[in-house]
C-alpha cells in the first residue's frame, strides 16, 4: 500500500498511555470508541485542580473557591465554544447516558407518546426513551444500516421527539442528522443528537445543525470519565422538568417553597464533578487546537484504510460494509470467520498476541446483533493519535489469524 500521511502523528507524544507495553511490546490502542486515552494536558489540568485549587464552586467567598469557580465556568465556556453554543446552554452531566435520561425524564411524556429513533442506537440512547415513552425505531437492512430516509413514514400524531446518533458506535457511519432535523422541525418536533462518538471525529456546530438537544461524554473526547455534557437550546432546557433537587440548583429556599436557578445550573444539583469538568475543558481545547477539520480528514482516511483492508481479508464481514467510505469515521465492526475462535476470543488474541486493544462483544447494541444473528463482533476504532501504520498492523494481524 502507498504510505499515507499522518498529519496528527505528532500527537502521539502527548499520550502517556501509548507508552504502555504488554509482554514487553508497545500497545496499539484501537478502542477509543469505548474510551479514549488522555493527553498529558488533561491529566495536568486535573492534577492542577487537586494540587492548587481544591474548593467548592459557587459557594465560598474565599480565593480558592473563586479560582475553582473560574476554572469550572471556564470549562463550560470551552465546551460551549467547541459546540458553537453559549455557556448558558451547557449542562454538565456524568456522561451521555445521563444527558439522555435527563431529557427523557424532563419532557413529561404521556402514555402512548412516541420517540422515533433507529434500531442501531446505543442502549444509552434507546432504553431511556423506551422507559419514558414508546420507542419507534426505523428498521435495519441486511447490512446493518438503518434506512434513514424512511423516518417520515414513522411519524404519527403521537410522535414527540426524534433521537439519533450522529455517528453510530457500531457502524461508524455518519447519519444524515440534518435531514432528520429538517423533517422533525417541519412538524415542530425536537431532536436529540447523540454525539458520544461523533464529537471525537467531526466538527460540531449546534447552531448550524439546529438540533434541540445534544449529548456527549468526556471520556471519549480525551477527557476524564464521570463528566459529560447536555447541550440544549435555552427555551428547550427551560421547559424540562427538574431532574434532581438539592444544593447548587436553588436560588432561594424558604418555608413556602423554593425557587430554582435558571438553566443550566438548575440541572446541576449537588457539588459537581469540578475536576472532571476542568479536564473536559482541557480536552476539548486540545482537540480544537488540532483543528477539527483536520481531525475529521484524518478519521476519514483511517476509516477508509481500515474498511478497504478488511474487505480484502477472506472471512471478514463488516457491519454496514456497503456504506460509502466518505461517510465513515475511523471505526469498523466486523466478524472474522476464523477456525476455532469466537469473536470474543478473537479480540483476546488480538490483545494477547499482537498487543492490539480492540473491543469484542456486543457494544451495547444487542438489537443489531440479534437481527443480524451475530454472536458478537470485534470493533476497531481510532482517535487522533492513531496512524495508518497501526491500521496496517491490525490488518496484517487479522490476515494472519484468518490464515490459521
Amino acid at each position, binding site marked *: 500500500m502507498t504510505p499515507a500521511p499522518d498529519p496528527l502523528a505528532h500527537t502521539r507524544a502527548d499520550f502517556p498511555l501509548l507508552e504502555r507495553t504488554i*509482554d514487553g511490546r508497545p500497545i496499539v490502542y484501537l478502542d477509543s470508541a469505548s474510551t479514549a486515552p488522555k493527553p498529558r494536558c488533561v491529566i495536568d489540568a486535573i492534577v492542577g485542580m487537586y494540587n492548587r485549587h481544591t474548593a467548592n464552586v459557587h459557594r465560598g467567598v474565599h480565593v480558592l473557591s473563586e479560582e475553582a469557580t473560574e476554572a469550572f465556568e471556564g470549562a463550560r465556556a470551552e465546551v460551549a465554544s467547541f459546540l458553537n453554543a453559549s455557556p448558558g446552554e451547557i449542562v454538565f452531566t456524568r456522561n451521555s447516558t445521563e444527558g439522555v435520561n435527563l431529557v427523557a425524564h424532563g419532557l413529561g411524556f404521556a402514555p402512548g407518546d412516541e420517540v422515533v429513533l433507529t434500531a442501531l442506537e446505543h442502549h444509552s440512547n434507546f432504553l431511556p426513551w423506551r422507559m419514558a415513552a414508546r420507542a419507534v425505531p426505523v428498521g435495519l437492512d441486511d447490512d446493518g444500516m438503518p434506512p434513514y430516509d424512511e423516518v417520515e413514514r414513522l411519524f404519527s400524531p403521537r410522535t414527540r421527539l426524534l433521537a439519533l446518533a450522529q455517528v453510530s458506535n457500531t457502524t461508524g457511519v455518519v447519519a444524515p442528522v440534518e435531514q432528520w432535523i429538517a423533517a422533525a422541525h417541519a412538524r415542530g418536533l425536537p431532536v436529540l443528537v447523540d454525539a458520544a462518538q461523533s464529537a471525537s471525529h467531526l466538527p460540531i456546530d449546534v447552531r448550524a445543525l439546529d438540533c434541540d438537544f445534544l449529548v456527549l461524554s468526556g471520556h471519549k473526547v480525551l477527557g476524564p470519565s464521570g463528566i459529560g455534557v447536555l447541550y440544549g437550546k435555552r427555551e428547550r432546557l427551560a421547559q424540562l422538568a427538574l431532574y434532581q433537587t438539592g444544593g447548587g440548583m436553588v436560588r432561594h429556599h424558604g418555608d413556602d417553597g423554593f425557587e430554582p436557578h435558571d438553566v443550566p445550573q438548575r440541572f446541576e444539583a449537588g457539588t459537581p464533578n469540578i475536576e472532571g469538568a476542568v479536564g473536559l475543558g482541557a480536552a476539548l481545547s486540545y482537540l480544537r487546537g488540532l483543528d477539527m477539520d483536520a481531525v475529521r480528514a484524518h478519521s476519514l482516511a483511517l476509516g477508509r484504510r481500515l474498511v478497504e483492508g478488511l474487505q480484502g481479508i477472506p472471512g471478514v464481514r463488516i457491519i454496514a460494509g456497503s456504506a460509502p467510505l466518505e461517510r465513515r469515521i475511523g471505526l469498523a465492526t466486523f466478524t472474522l470467520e476464523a*477456525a476455532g475462535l469466537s469473536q470474543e476470543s478473537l479480540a483476546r488474541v488480538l490483545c494477547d498476541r499482537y498487543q492490539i486493544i480492540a473491543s469484542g462483544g456486543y457494544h451495547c447494541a444487542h438489537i443489531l446483533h440479534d437481527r443480524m444473528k451475530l454472536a458478537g463482533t470485534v470493533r476497531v476504532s481510532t482517535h487522533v493519535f492513531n496512524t495508518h501504520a497501526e491500521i496496517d498492523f491490525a490488518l496484517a494481524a487479522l490476515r494472519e489469524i484468518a490464515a490459521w
Partner: protein
Amino acid sequence: MASDPYSARCAAALEGALAAVPFYRGWRALDPGPDRPAAERMAALPVLSRADLRAHVPDGFVRSGFSARDGFAAGEIEIVTTSGTTADRASVVWHQPWWDRSLREAARVHPALEAVYRGPHREAVLTSPMCTGNLCHVGELPVAERTLGNLLFLNQELDPARWDAASVRRMADELNGFQPDVIEADPAYLAVLARACIRSDTPLHQPACISLTYEFPSHLHLREIRRAFPGVPVVSSYGSTETGYVFTECEAGLLHQNTATCHVDIQPVRDSRSRGRLGRILVTTLGNPWFELLRFDVGDLARLHGGAPCRCGRTDGLTVEAIEGRARDLTFDTRGMAVTVRQLDDAIAAADGLLAYRIEQSGPRRYAVRYVAEDGAEEALAAALPPLVRDLYGPDAEVTARREPTLAPEQSGKFRLALTTFEWNVEELFA
C-alpha cells in the same frame, strides 16, 4: 536416556519438540545432546511462560505435520482463551480427547476418583462461572443450559459472597436432582456452599468423591467441606487449562504426578530464599501434538516429598508433599525468606472462628491481615491473629489486623490469600 518407557517418552517429547515444533527452534542450540542424562538436558533449557503462549498460540506449539488449520476445520481443536490480568491470561489450543485422557489418567492415583472416572459418570462443577474455557455461566441460565452431557455447571455468580438463600437452595436442589458421582470444585466456593447448607439444614447430595482443583485448598475450606460431606473422600487435584491434570492426591495424602500425559520438573528456589525442597512446577506435556509444552511455568510452587517412598506404594513420576500456592502469592519473612501460601495457611487457618483471610505485605516488615470472622469470634480473632502472623514472619514483624464483612475474589474468580504491594521479581528466586 531411555532406560524405561516413561523416560523414553520424555526423551522423545524433548527431541520431538526441539526438532519439529516451531517455537522451540531457538532452544535447540541449548540442548547438550542425547548422550547427556534427561534431567540435565531439560535443566539446560529456558522456562516457557504465559507470555510465550500469548505471543505464539496457536501455530507456535503445533508439531510439524499437523496443521492447526485442518485441526480447526475438522473440529479436533479449538482455541480457548482464559481471562484476567497478565498473570492469568493465556490462549490455549484445546484438544478435548487429550484433556479427557489427562483427567482419566490423573484420576488413577486415587481409588475413589479412579472408580468414578473409569466409566460413565455424572459430574457437577462448582467454580467461578468465568473459569470454564470459552463457556460463561454468569447470569440466570436455566439448569438445562448449564448441563452439558454428563456435566452440570452449578454456579452463576462471580462472588460466592453474593449467593443468597435462594441460590444456595437452587444449587443444593440441582445436586440432589442430578446426583453427580463427583463434584469438581474450587475449594473456596464449595466451602461457602457447604457452610450455608449446614447452617440452613439443607440436605446435600453426597457424591462418591470430591475433587478440589482450580486453586489452593485452605484448611478453612477443607474444614467446612468435610463437615458437609462426612466420609466422602476429598481429593486434591492439580492442573491447569494449559497442562491438563498434573498431580493428584493419593489415599496417603501425598500428590503423585500423572506420568501418562506430562513430565514435571520442580525447579528449586534458591536455598538462600527458602527452606526445604520448594520449587516451581514446570510441565512438559506428553502425547498432544497440537499443543506441545516444554517446561511450562504454570506459576505455582510445590514441595517435593523427601525420604521414604509413599505409603500408597506408587513410585513412578514425582511425589510432592503439597502444592504450595502461586509464586506471585509469595510473601517474605522479615529476613527475606519466602513464605508460601501453604506455610501461611498452616500458620493461621486453624484460628477459631476464622472464615476467610488475606495477608498483604507492604514492606520488608509490614503485614496487614484482613479477615472475616464468624459471629461472636471477632474479638478473639483480633487478639489471636497478630501473634500467629509474627510467629510466621518474625518477632520484629509489624502486624495490623482488620475485620472485613467479606473478602472478594480477583477478576479471575480466585481468592488470593496473600500478596505483596511492592514489586519484586519472581525470577530472582531461581537465578
